[in-house]
């Protein structure tokens, strides 16, 4: 795919480590907050980054390449060829990315739950490939 970059074992390992790190820090952020809504945007943003890294791991394992510097639709399309269920979770996360990261309205409780579900599923799939 245009814009996709060839994967090496180091890339795969590094992206998995980052996925783990983003999820762990997301949970720490949530645990340290008095109320989940106070940190909802940071939490969801970290899960979005975790999901993107996990998607790269799945693409590396299945296709030998990963999306790099391509737009969201291309990243989802590439992941879809490797794992259709994982691609749906990535789509869920990427839909939230711009609004949560750059918008002014706070992430909702529903966003939080959806991001957590999608992030967990992508990380689980990335570890299992």
């Amino acid at each position, binding site marked *: 795919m245009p814009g996709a970059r060839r994967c090496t074992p180091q890339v795969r390992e590094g992206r998995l480590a980052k996925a783990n790190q983003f999820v*762990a820090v997301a*949970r720490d952020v949530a645990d340290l907050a008095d109320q989940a809504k106070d940190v909802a945007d940071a939490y969801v943003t970290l899960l979005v980054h975790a999901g993107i890294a996990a998607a790269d791991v799945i693409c590396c394992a299945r*296709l030998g*390449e990963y999306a790099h510097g391509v737009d969201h639709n291309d990243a989802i399309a590439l992941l879809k060829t490797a794992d259709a269920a994982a691609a749906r979770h990535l789509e869920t996360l990427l839909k939230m990315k711009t609004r949560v990261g750059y918008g002014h309205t706070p992430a909702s409780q529903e966003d939080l739950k959806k991001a957590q579900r999608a992030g*967990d599923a992508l990380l*689980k799939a990335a570890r*299992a490939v």
Partner: protein
Amino acid sequence: MDLAHPLAVVTPTLDGDILAVLALVDTAFTPRQLHGMLSQHSEDGIRRALRRLTSQGIVSDARAGNAYLYRLSRSHLAAEPIIELARMRQTFLARLEDRLGSWAVAPVYGAIFGSVARGSMRIDSDIDLLLIRPDEGDRDRWDDLVAQLTADVTAWTGNDTRVLEFSESEVLRSGRQEPVLRDVVAHGLTVAGTADWLRRALPAKEPNDARS
């Protein structure tokens, strides 16, 4: 067996590794792309194996410019069993999840760790399984379930199964001092409960650390 090379159970050759890649995604690869994924084999060897597999009809080829693209021929009679074999790692984890989910004394948490989780498994590797036992529940029944599962996992795979067991209260009391539990948090493949339970049970710092 080696879950990283699932087709080695029927053919310990490059052909098996190529089929395992082609079976898991319905997409076409050039020999160079396959070489990038199977770098322990030469590109020439991969081309020869692809020709063998194409002559059997299980792999189809198509010309794209100067290159040839290869993919699994999914209508071939052998495609379905090959896909099943290629999915052995996923099947193993799903079977384990189902089994643990059916236990009368449900584990608080369970995960595969070690070489299977890290993707460095070899044919004679042990299968390492962490199980966190609930503090309540019939202990004799639990021991029977663990013994049966240990024997079954070995029968499913041909590998020795090593169960590492802690009680829920042991983990909450002193799990932070167990490096193996940190390894499970970082790399484990959860098969019972949620990874979040174990992570929360092992805070990165003692409460006082934050002030130091």
